């Protein structure tokens, strides 16, 4: 038996297997969910969460942690529902400015060797403050083009599935297959080695943080397209969800070991937990708890697989 199941292969497949089991359970309890409409409804909110998870993944990849991504996504949603809707040029400039701030933070963290937890903790207050000034009360309106993009109804395959696959593949090719992507990930594995071979760590960190800022912006815009209006607290829970998503998707906390496809799968799994509980007619109170439990179970399975591998 032990020879048939290759532990390493199983570990790579673990995120997908967890998702498949969850989906199978949902379809078993509620067969009607297995339809175009059902999938669309269940997976809609997975798109912004997947984008935020990808953003967090870039940060985790260089051994940092972003505690501000939730309030950043909220701010992006607020900008999309106000500036981007009223004066598109100003909106785009504002978003670009925020991405630039992210890049500067990455450079600053590297230059002064600052703990990213504290810096992003401080930034979470800043983003939230700007969002509150922009939208003191919930409101605003999603620009029409975002709204129509997020409510697309392509034939046969629901939009959230297409979007998830596109996000996962694009990031996978860019980060896992390109030569610069290897350097970026290498910076998380062994920063000194990467630096010795002539790459600038400051530039690498700035790039990774800018990428996180970019995907955080996409997340906020996608979220507004779904909710049609925004408020300053709309995505605060994304901070913890995104970390959980990366880890669930097979990412490691240190060493630049991440997986974009896994991260998207992790985000979808976390989103589906809510639907699963409501199909079980369990109290929605347990949704957060179930997300925590799934995280612990998957991590426990990973430990088991690692043990199996070590024994070989």
């Amino acid at each position, binding site marked *: 038996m032990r020879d048939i199941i290759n532990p390493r292969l199983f570990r790579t497949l673990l995120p997908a297997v967890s998702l498949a089991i969850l989906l199978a359970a949902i379809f078993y309890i509620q067969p009607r969910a297995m339809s175009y409409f059902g999938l669309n409804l269940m997976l809609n909110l997975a798109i912004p969460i997947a984008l935020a998870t990808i953003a967090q993944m870039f940060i985790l990849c260089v051994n940092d942690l972003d505690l501000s991504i939730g309030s950043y996504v909220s701010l992006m949603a607020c900008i999309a529902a106000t500036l981007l809707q009223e004066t598109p040029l100003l909106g785009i400039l504002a978003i670009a400015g925020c991405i630039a701030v992210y890049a500067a933070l990455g450079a600053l963290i590297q230059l002064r060797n600052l703990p990213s937890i*504290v810096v992003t*903790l401080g930034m979470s207050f800043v983003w939230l403050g700007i969002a*509150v000034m922009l939208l003191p009360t919930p409101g605003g309106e999603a620009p029409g083009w975002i709204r129509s993009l997020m409510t697309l109804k392509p034939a046969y395959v629901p939009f959230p599935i297409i979007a998830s696959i596109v996000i996962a593949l694009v990031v996978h090719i860019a980060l896992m297959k390109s030569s610069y992507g290897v350097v970026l990930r290498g910076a998380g594995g062994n920063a000194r080695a990467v630096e010795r071979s002539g790459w600038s760590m400051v530039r690498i960190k700035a790039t990774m943080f800018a990428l996180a800022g970019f995907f955080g912006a996409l997340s906020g815009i996608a979220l507004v397209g779904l909710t049609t209006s925004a408020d300053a607290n709309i995505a605060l829970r994304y901070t913890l969800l995104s970390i959980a998503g990366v880890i669930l998707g097979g990412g490691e906390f240190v060493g630049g070991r991440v997986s974009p496809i896994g991260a998207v799968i992790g985000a979808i799994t976390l989103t589906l937990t809510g639907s699963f509980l409501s199909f079980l007619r369990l109290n929605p109170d347990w949704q957060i708890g179930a997300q925590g439990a799934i995280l*612990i179970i998957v991590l426990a399975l990973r430990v088991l697989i690692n043990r199996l591998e070590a024994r070989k």
Partner: protein
Amino acid sequence: MIAAIFRLPWFWSWFGAVLMVVAIIAVSGGAAGAGVVSAALLFGSFFVIVAIGQMLVITTGPGNVDLSIPSSMTLVATVAMKVMDGSDGMILVGLLLALVLGILIGSANYLVIRLLNIPPIIATLSTSFIYQSLAIWYNRGLRIKPPEALGDFATGKILGLPYLAIATIMLAAIMHVVLRRTVYGQSVLAIGQNARAARLAGINVNRVRYLTYTLCAVFSAICGFFLAAFSGGAALNMGEEYLLASIAVVVIGGTSVAGGFSNVPGLWGAALFMFLLVTMLNTFGLGAGPRLILTGLIIIGVILAASGRDR
């Protein structure tokens, strides 16, 4: 001599706190100043109680942060308030229950960290989700008033000094001595400086880390218990601001985020500073937005300044 004072880890947080008091008195007069200081001591107490626990955890080295503080606070407060059900005779039972729950939560946290062999941030993140759900499920949206005597204690003062502040100052003094003078305290510092060396020196690293996470959860439990008593009952979002606040107070107070170096007096300075800063910005009539932005920038400014400081 002066340069030596500047280099004290707790100096800047206390300097900031005093500066805030001066600014507030300058704007609204001495009488208002006295009231503000009394309020700062009370609210600062809640910050300090959780921050002591978070400080111990952070001191044990990089990657050690307890993210479950807010949900532990909420869960313990909810359960304790419901069990006491407003009766004065049950206060002792409620407090004991809170402490036992704290020990259980800390043990659960460390169990997950050890068994799954994962970074404490992820472990406490996962468990915090579960505690939060438990609190929501147990609470059912009810808000049970704390026993009257307990409420009186939590809001009571003697000569303008809140009882809670006096108790917390004593707690901080005890923890200061524990860190400096006991085997446990020195072990925490040693593990934070070099876990491998600490292990080779014969320190039982696992036991010390277990104790640290348990202490942190117990302090969260105490804070949640008294915060609920103070604010007239447990609310599901009562712990929310304490996650970020606990980390911010620890860092501003001069404790090293990289571990191995902690400072208890700085916690009080930082807690007072954080509360007074918000109060001062309020007195200047700033809205919530600018207040949040300034708070964030000051946290980043402090960590920037600290990074230039050689310790």
